[in-house]
């Protein structure tokens, strides 16, 4: 199962002290849906505020990216440049 790490302060409001999760899903969207079932409201928060790094590569819009069973997914705040 893909491993999700949500080490951002804004996620704590949903997940409390937990920062690592193993959830089912073969696309980012399904992983987010699984997280949302565990923590209602978390899904929308992720979609609006977070960028997603899949196995090291950062995606700002990742909804339909495939996720492997060994994938590592990091939730990080969206970044703006200048």
């Amino acid at each position, binding site marked *: 199962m893909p491993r999700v790490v949500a080490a951002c302060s804004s996620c704590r409001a949903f997940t409390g002290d937990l920062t690592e999760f193993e959830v089912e899903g073969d696309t980012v969207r399904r992983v987010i849906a699984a997280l949302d079932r565990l923590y209602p409201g978390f899904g929308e928060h992720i979609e609006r*505020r977070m960028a997603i790094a899949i196995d090291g590569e950062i995606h700002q819009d990742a909804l339909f990216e495939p996720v492997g069973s060994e994938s590592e997914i990091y939730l990080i705040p969206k970044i703006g*440049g200048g």
Partner: protein
Amino acid sequence: MSDVLERPESAIRVAAPLDDGHLKVVGTRPIRPDGAEKVTGKALYGADLAMPGMLVGKIKRSPHAHARIVSIDTRKARALAGVKAIVTAADFPDLASEEYEAGESASNLRDLSLNVMARHKALYDGHAVAAVAATSSDIADEALALIVVEYEALPHVIDVEAAMADGAPVLHAHLFTEGLAARPDKPSNIAKRNELTRGDLAAGFAGAEVIIEGRYTTAAVHQGYIEPHACVANFGADGQCQVWSSSQGQFMIRTYCAKVLDLEASDIRVTPAEIGGGFGGKTTVYLEPVALALSRQCGAPVKMVMTRDEVFRATGPTSGAVIEVKLGAMADGTIVAADVVLKYQAGAFPGSPVGAGSMTALACYDVPNFSIVGYDVVTNTPKVAAYRAPGAPISAFGVESAVDDLALKLGMDPIALREKNAVRDGTKASYGPTFRNIGYVETLQAIREHPHYSAPLGPNQGRGLAVGFWFNVGGESTAAVNIGEDGSAVVISGNPDIGGSRASMAMMAAEVLGLPVEKVRPIVADTASIGFSMLTGGSRTTFATGMAVTQAAQKIVEDLKRRAALLMDVSVDQVDYVNGVAVCLDASKGKADLTIAELAAKAAQTGGPIGAQVSLNAQGAGPGFGVHLCDVEVDPETGHVTVLRYTAAQDVGKAIHPAYVEGQIQGGVAQGVGWALNEEYVFDRTGHMENAGFLDYRVPVASDLPMIDAIMVEVANPRHPFGAKGVGEVPIVPPLAAVANAVRGAIGKRMTDLPLSPPKIRAAVDAG
């Protein structure tokens, strides 16, 4: 053309292009296609457009740093002959709080709207409270003076820690600190607290053999683009709006104007003017919604151009900040613990770049135990806007100063210390994901091997090293390529050119199409003429828009092969396209080659016009690393710091047009040097900016700087067709500490408060 570049084994390429013998255009230095009009003064920037019947728009601004707006009386102003329109917040919808992403990161639309035109409260000296449109500049000025605004002045706060303290004047009654364990019951100026942690900080420090601590402070600095904000807006009688604006993103302007004025985006057409510098400061709106609102009221086009004074007082600088760093290390230089606290000014509304500052603070280091805490704090100063790698230079200043002290304490070479703790492929970044295809170590190596590193120093001279990191982004871009009947090409995209990107777009298309670059004309189109593109910023254009351009050109090549096959009467798999010529692979068939010009001449017979458009959302932008080396000489009598020599190495992936990559590096260095030595917002006791002009807001001039040696290290990013990584922002990250570390070397004292202006240096030298 290869679409996946192999990562070179010996990865350093120092000031020479990647060894791809097959690249004909990418990596060369052609003259930019918009060059002639720029050197002859013909290019049109935001203030250069005139429309028939155009009025002059001007803004009335609060003289108070913090005040309730009790009333605004515009009657006398309206009665003045020549005044055609007056607007206040009453003419703008009262938006609910809503996060919306139209720039590069989410903006709160309500805050954006309130910043454009104050409602109920003025939150900084310079905050817009009303605007007029009149038949001449003089009449507009007179009208502004006739608008009577009654204020109830309130205590104000500017310093970030003063704003955080209990009892500080509170800017927003409904702002409660986000990110705390328990929701607070009192409003605060601390909008947000964020935290990044790893490992066990206490254990890490307990095991450390050496501890370094430092407290560092920086002042607010402005992006300092030479062109003030300018736009012309026309609200047509049929509700169709035209906006001509110098900005970093015409689609962003369209979206924000639509949201702020409650209009349909499809009713607004934004044409990008040439832009005289942005650096992030033009990734938002100030004038455009106001100009549209004025134009709507009077039915005439309205031009608005800011004065330099207004640019400083009312457009986003970046944060002034406090940075606290504590490092724990072993005697061999291994950093085992790091504790960083960042406090950034957000200006009048939440949204400082402290999040990015937190994420980049330790990005160059592989540290097992750390805590990075960031505070986003509102202050009675203009709302902060993005400034080139927003947030990163500030935290890098603190961390790199501390690491420099660590090297001194350990008696260790600064490059060796950084190598010891360097992130490499496979290292988990401090902000989470695992690094891949990065060139940090190679960039350190490039500096170590550079003659600058071992050049001798004289009296009162010092040398400083510092490193820096920036993510770079990808995002949505659209590009269209059309082939003319003579075989030439037009490349259309939606990204304003702020650093020479047009040239790079033309070069990438020329490479794929096998055309000489002079036959490829790049155009930056308006919002109605090209599909959506995220704005120019975040070091994204060459990466993401370049990707769209390349893919569109590749589609055209496939189409050309199909047409050639038709004309040659062979199957498509027997046709190849090389260097602008379609050839039949089977020589026995005796088919003559067909050039792109010949194919274009037959376009009508082979399916019609030849063109392709690609819209994409580019992912996989590679982060960039910079390593800078700076030599300074300090005059102990005057405290003046002269930058003697500067060498900047950067991991750029692939330099599409090396001269413009060098230019980005040199420009970022210059801004960083100004930030380190001279630039700062100076406020008087009433919260009014005292140095709102280029005389006293001292940016580097030509005599302040030496030649800047830019070394491009190419470690390819396999996600980009030519291996490019974004380059524009990294160069401003290391200079603050590079300069401060050099000063440390020159005077033997650690300076922790930027800018290092002469009085401060004198005081430090005098103190002995």
